[in-house]
């Protein structure tokens, strides 16, 4: 379903990945573990099409997205969703507007139905008209997840999505997110430096060692 081959990239003038390969099946939840600066976030950004790499191919659902470290398909048309560490919600839009941002080509009634469905999936009903700053960190993170899931992406990327939450809320949310992802049946990659988090959330866990990926 997803194939990343021969990825090599440089982070702050150091070569951090060389010969990185990863293959995932439909619905897999994969966790990518590594220390800071190990290149795990850079790999994620390359898969998203946001940054270039020295080398590497990305194939998703039979479509070639990137070759030779360059992107053939722009981030806008990759059908890849992403949840950022700091949520990156649009502060001037309500929860509803945030969620419908990626599905504005659909009809109003379709959009409303999708918002309802997603809010019930993330367990936060009745917050449509609230602004992001009126929500707690955990709630914001779940809204960010709903926003990324709204256009039904083929692949979902989660870049350290729990790192700005305290331990108690994090454990709760990790469980919740796993069940949300499983219900949505979306292929996902989680980047984290927390081994417990990786083990709870993912089906497969990989670690970056010697610039390559080792899967446990």
């Amino acid at each position, binding site marked *: 379903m997803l194939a990343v081959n021969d990825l090599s990239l440089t982070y702050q003038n150091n070569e951090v990945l060389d010969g990185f390969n990863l293959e995932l099946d439909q619905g897999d939840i994969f966790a990518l573990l590594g220390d800071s600066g190990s290149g795990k976030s850079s790999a994620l950004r390359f898969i*998203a099409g*946001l940054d270039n790499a020295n080398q590497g191919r990305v194939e998703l659902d039979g479509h070639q997205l990137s070759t030779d470290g360059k992107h053939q398909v*722009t*981030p*806008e*048309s*990759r059908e*890849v*969703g*992403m949840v*950022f560490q*700091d949520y*990156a*919600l*649009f*502060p*001037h839009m309500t929860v509803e507007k945030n969620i419908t*941002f*990626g599905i504005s080509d659909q009809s109003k009634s379709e959009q409303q139905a999708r918002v309802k469905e997603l809010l019930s999936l993330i367990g936060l009903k009745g917050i449509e008209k609230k*602004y992001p*700053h009126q929500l707690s960190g955990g709630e914001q993170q779940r809204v960010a997840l709903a*926003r*990324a899931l*709204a*256009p039904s992406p083929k692949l979902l990327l989660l870049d350290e999505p729990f790192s700005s939450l305290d331990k108690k809320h994090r454990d709760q949310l990790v469980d919740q997110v796993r069940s949300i992802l499983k219900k949505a049946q979306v292929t996902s990659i989680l980047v984290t430096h927390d081994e417990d988090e990786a083990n709870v959330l993912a089906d497969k866990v990989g670690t970056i060692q010697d610039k390559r990926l080792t899967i446990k």
Partner: protein
Amino acid sequence: MPIFVVALSWLLPEHELWAHFSENLLPSLVSSTAVLLVGVGIGVTLLGTILAYLVVMVEFPGRKWLEWALFLPFAIPAYVLAFVYLGVFDYSGYAQVWMREVLGLPGFDIRSGSWAIILTFVLVFYPYVYMMTRASFKRQKINMIEAGKLLGASPIKVFFKISLPLARPAAAAGLLVTLMETLADFGVVGLFNYDTFTTAIYSAWGDYRSVEVAAQLASLLVLVAFFLIYFEKKARGQAKYYSADVSNKKPYQASGVVGWLISLFVLGVFMLSFAMPMLQLVAWGWESVGEEWSAKYFDLISSTSVLTVSAALITVAIATVLALPGRCKQNSIWLSSVIRMATLGYALPGSVMAVGLLYGINQISEINIHLVVRVLTILFLDRLLCYYLLMCLVLWQLLIAQLMHRLSKLSRCIPKVRVYWAHHDYV
């Protein structure tokens, strides 16, 4: 005090003159001032915001130096730019002569209509909007734009739905300062023979010798100014700001033809607003310096320098003192209201300040209660006028500086006092 004085002027109505002003001049003054404000407002908002977005969000050839070069028009006073453009594009200016004689096109009157004066104001004042929106775009998290891209949004949609709404309060603030400056301008409108409220204030005072009518007109100008502030406050609304992102990466790369087209556009603005007028000034200066130069220019330079440097020093000092308590966490209500009162005056166009203060002195000298005061006033009137001119300048600059400081605090961008020296036309 200036507001109080100009408001007080309504107690001393000059019915005939006021009737003359309100019947014959006021309607056209209101409409010409409104046309000017709307035109300049739309122009600076579009130009300033687009330029800021391009230099912050898009990587294109020459971006780095153009980002700073676009601030340079701040160094040219509005009336100097107007002078250059009139010199070049007036009927006898070489641009029109060339158009008529070489291209065979009919000539045009640059002073007719309002497009030329609006364009001049836009070229000289766009840096206010550029400066404010650039800072705002820089504070927008790159993640937010990337999230938008991954949700399938085109660069145009990202601009209109994410970046622009978030920069709106900053654009409104820049727009407010621009409109205040336009409202207060005397140099450009004078050169273009364009009548506004400000020229009417000077005319009531100078031609009709009526400080009262001047003050009454000035009080209307204050109303307009407060109206603008009210709208700026309203426009600020609910928008939230974000802290600086460390990443220097640009969300968009414009390569090839698109990149060069963007460069050409930004360079064009820089050429029109700064480089070409400067070159023209140097060329004119070169032609006439031999015959024109005399010792009186030393006097002019020294009086300009004294006024500028002392106004700058006093402005920085007062602004710093006023801004300091704002840094403390526990403000007494008393202190903060005094500071708020002191900074309220940024709503005042310079002409109102001048009328208010000078009208005040005028009254003192006529009231005749204290002989001492009167003698002193007569004795020192000349000097007082100079001091008051200086004070007008200082206060006006202070207000702009305070406004900038407030906005910078509001947008949490810089943890120290920011004082901007804004150029002015008074000298």
